[in-house]
């Protein structure tokens, strides 16, 4: 298992290399001149030239890329053009809030998703199934910014239960993580349902039932474990979705995370920050999926890792 993990992690390096190159090209393909944007509306040509020089933006592109990569290998992500701070500091500062929001969203999405999914599968085609599936499908059918804004209206302004935004104690997590996790909860619920329905038809479940185990025991002990495998894979993929979703959720709830930093950096064409964020997002995604694959094996020891890759 260790050998497999090391192999997978080594395999990520060329991938990250390619991503860094794409990120660089991508960032420079976007029309716009960061120096002009940063200098502001009433800046003079000299001021703009100053900024270009300061951040090496007047160098040829390949030179800029080599400089970027050379620094990257020394653990230096460069300086933000907007704030002049080291990009690494900025990312470290923003990483915590995004990660905790993502984890909170994922955790409750899994709790509700699994519960709803199991109830549906067990009560198949009865009203609890229809109701919970309707809820689940609704969860993926609402534009998240609309959901978020309406929740602020209802729970913050009208009822005064939760703050409208910002990061802080427990209560500040509820609305944003609900907004961010709603879609994922719904997807997990649907997956759990169909996967559990498959499993419930298998022989060993029938055997369990015929042995006289209660339905609860059958489901809790045998079915869920097997049904979880595809659910886990799906959840791993959904992390990417959460990272994307964080851009909108963080904007609505004034959350000081990576998503908002990203959208601000793109608007300001803050090249070093955008590049590093893309790399970080990709790395995060790859690592989570590695974790998922490992968990996969844990849930189903029959899978051997050599095949899994």
């Amino acid at each position, binding site marked *: 298992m260790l050998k497999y993990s090391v192999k997978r992690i080594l395999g990520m390096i060329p*991938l990250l290399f*390619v*991503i860094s190159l*794409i990120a660089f090209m*991508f960032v420079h*393909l*976007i*029309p*716009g001149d960061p120096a002009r944007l940063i200098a502001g509306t009433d800046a003079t040509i000299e001021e703009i030239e100053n900024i270009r020089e300061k951040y090496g933006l007047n160098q040829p592109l390949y030179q800029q890329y080599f400089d970027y990569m050379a620094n990257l290998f020394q653990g230096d992500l460069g300086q933000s053009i907007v704030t002049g701070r080291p990009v690494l500091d900025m990312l470290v500062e923003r990483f915590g809030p995004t990660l905790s929001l993502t984890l909170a969203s994922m955790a409750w999405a899994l709790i509700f998703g699994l519960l709803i999914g199991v109830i549906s599968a067990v009560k198949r085609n009865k009203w609890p199934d*229809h109701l919970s*599936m*309707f809820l689940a*499908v*609704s969860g*993926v*059918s*609402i*534009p*998240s*910014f*609309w959901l978020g*804004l*309406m929740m602020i*209206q209802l729970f913050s302004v009208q009822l005064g239960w939760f703050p409208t935004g910002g990061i802080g104690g427990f209560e500040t997590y509820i609305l944003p993580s609900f907004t961010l996790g709603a879609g994922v909860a719904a997807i997990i619920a*649907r997956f759990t349902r*169909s996967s559990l*329905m*498959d499993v419930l038809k298998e022989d060993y479940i029938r055997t369990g039932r015929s042995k006289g185990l209660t339905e609860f025991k059958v489901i809790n002990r045998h079915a869920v474990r097997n049904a979880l495998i595809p659910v886990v894979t799906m959840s791993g*993929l959904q992390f*990417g*979705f959460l*990272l*994307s*979703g964080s*851009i*909108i959720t963080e*904007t609505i709830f004034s959350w000081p995370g990576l998503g908002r930093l*990203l*959208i601000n950096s*793109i608007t300001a064409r803050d090249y070093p920050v955008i590049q590093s964020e*893309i790399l970080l*997002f*990709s790395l995060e*995604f*790859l690592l989570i999926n590695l974790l998922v694959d490992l968990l996969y094996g844990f849930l189903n020891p029959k899978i051997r890792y050599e095949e899994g890759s």
Partner: protein
Amino acid sequence: MAEAATQKEEQQEKKVTPTQQFWKSFKKQKVSFAAGIFLLLLFVVAIIGPWIAPYGPQEYDYDNLLSGPSWQHLAGTDDFGRDIFSRILHGAWISLSVGLSSVFIGALLGTILGIISGYFGKWVDSAIMRVMDVLLAFPGMLLAIGIIAILGPGLFNVVMAVAIFSVPVFARIIRSSTLAIKSTLYVEATQSIGSSHFRVIMKHIFPGTVSTLIVYFTMRIGSAILIAAGLSFLGLGADPSTPEWGAMLSNGRDYLNNAPHVTFFPGLAIFLTVLAFNLLGDGLRDALDPKIRD
């Protein structure tokens, strides 16, 4: 496009099971069936919308800004005094096209890549799948934002952004079903007789992937419409004067308090449409997937 999909469905059923059987099991999925009918009606509305709408989509009335629903304006008026109901009717076609065409392009590319990858295997497979990994590892919204930033805003570019978003998803799924079909003896036998690759793919592999394709296709349309709405929220969507639903919803968000109808109706239209596509997808999956069908 809807027509094309039904044709595919029919072909598919002739091969595997009779069409009637699909119908029989699909009709059992009452909710999905209703969703299907809703979508059919929606398509009709989308086509005839401009003729039945009481007002033009750009017909402004500065003396009648943000008025609530009334008999004159069934869904009220927006911040230019335009009739929201008429705009929803006019916009149905646009919003559906954004969803359908972007997923269609994404599915087309993804399917081609997935089949090639799964069928030929070896280095072709690894090359294509590595590229797909990179695309998947790029958070989708980021990719879309980048594409819009490069190409500029506008409906067509939104479609492209959302399409590229969908390519790796389809490529992965189609690859795995290609692998499954390929491993059946049946294809191996055909191959050994000496048919061309193209023939094998078109005659045996592709039809086998169609049921998976249809299910994911319907489900992705919903996400495509939502992504387009999200891009509007970030100011990267369609020209806000076009009556595209996502743009309408996002423009109206400043009026959530004092004129909630401006967001409610387009929001409802998006919600119902996405809901219907998802329910339809669920039903199709149950009806097409022999494992789940009783």
